[in-house]
């Protein structure tokens, strides 16, 4: 049986970067519980458009939890209250009739609000750029056994590579730290032979970039791990810490 619910939404509205924003209250009525959170916002936006009002801006692309574009903080939880889900994969069956939802953008000095719930996450690209290149030959696929990789390492590397770069870790961190993001990138490459030659340089440069981009410092509070839609673990931060110390103490890099 289909069930529909009525919600009260308190949504952050902000014209553009640097401008003062405010919460505005909207009603979302007869929302099907089969909808996703973004589809619920689509319904609200359709109403707003019909009334000639400005629709609520929010980021999204794949709507299947793999691109990392979507994300907002719902009642204090990045990507909403469900574990291991992106906002686009969050379904309205997890909410009840009469709920009030406060919806805010990621809050971080490194992520300025562009409009409403849309933030500028270019800082994450700058971090990736700072990490630099790895040396793999282009062309046809290499012979699978020419570079041996243990299943164990490849699994761990894949776990880290699951990061979709949505920024929820930074949004969730009480310190606004990007350590889980960097930890995932460092681990992803440092665990594989292909990423080893540049591992030291990568660790030093990514941390330098992180410090310059306005992120906070990690206090091992682990809210990032709790909120990551891909459930990336803080063992990756520990590996980053090791790689970083190694880079300074036993490599030529500085």
């Amino acid at each position: 049986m289909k069930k529909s619910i009525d919600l009260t939404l308190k949504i952050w509205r902000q014209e553009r970067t640097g401008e003062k924003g405010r919460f505005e209250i909207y009603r979302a009525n007869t929302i099907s519980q089969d909808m996703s959170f973004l589809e619920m916002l689509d319904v609200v936006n359709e109403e707003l458009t019909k009334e000639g009002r400005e629709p609520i801006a929010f980021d999204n692309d794949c709507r299947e939890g793999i691109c990392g574009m979507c994300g907002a903080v719902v009642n204090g939880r990045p990507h909403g209250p469900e574990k291991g889900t992106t906002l686009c994969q969050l379904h309205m069956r997890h909410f009840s009739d009469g709920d009030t939802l406060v919806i805010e953008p990621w809050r971080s000095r490194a992520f300025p609000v562009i409009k409403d719930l849309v933030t500028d996450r270019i800082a994450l690209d700058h971090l990736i750029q700072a990490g630099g290149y790895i040396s793999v030959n282009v062309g046809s696929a290499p012979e699978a056994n020419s570079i041996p990789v243990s299943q164990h390492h490849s699994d761990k590397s894949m776990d880290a590579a699951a990061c979709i770069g949505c920024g929820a870790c930074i949004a969730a961190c009480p310190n606004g730290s990007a350590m889980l993001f960097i930890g995932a990138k460092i681990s992803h490459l440092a665990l594989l032979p292909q990423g080893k030659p540049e591992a030291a340089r990568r660790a030093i440069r990514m941390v330098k970039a992180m410090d310059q981009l306005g992120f906070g410092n990690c206090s091992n509070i682990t809210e990032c791990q709790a909120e990551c839609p891909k459930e990336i673990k803080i063992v990756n931060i520990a590996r980053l810490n090791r790689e970083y110390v190694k880079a300074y103490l036993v490599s030529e890099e500085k």
Partner: protein
Amino acid sequence: MSWLFSFIWSSLGRKLLMALTGFCFCMFLVMHLFGNLMLYGGRDAFNGYAEKLHQLGVLVTVFELGLLTFGIIHVLTGSILFYQNFAARPVRYAVRASGGGQTLGSATMPYTGFLVLVFVVFHLIDFHFADRTNATIYDIVSTAFHDPFHLATYIFVMIVVAVHVSHGFWSAFQTFGLNHVKYMPLIKGLSLAFAFVVGLGFGFIPIYIALFRGQ
């Protein structure tokens, strides 16, 4: 040596400073607790212990200077990190909820740390710099703990210290990069156990003196 500066002064380097100094303080707490246990032996046992300790002479001074240096590093670095972390989120969330990651300890590190700092200052004035011409160290401690205000504050701060190390202990391991599924549960367990030992160990001594020992 500029690499050393870049290393130490990066966010990660500062974290390592916090972890190193914090972990040394944890070890200091263990030693301090063993010393304090002498209070259960009464006046002579404790005064005897204090005397033996001071016979170490210059070693004590070196140790004290080391603690002071580490203290300054821990407090200054902690303050810088606290400021930077605060500044990293200029607009706060209207609603904040935990996803289950944070604990009482981790959420309050700067505040419990600050309380400990204030306590340490008064603690040193009370016991370390106390005038010992007319009273032995045991008498000074005993008099203090027979005062209800002293007693209550001391016990409260011991709980605060326990909360600080309940996160700090395992967090230092994570900062050093020592996190592995094989032993992290053990370290987390140790962290909690350490917090209990510190809280109960230090906290029960003044209660014992106030209740079971005459002034």
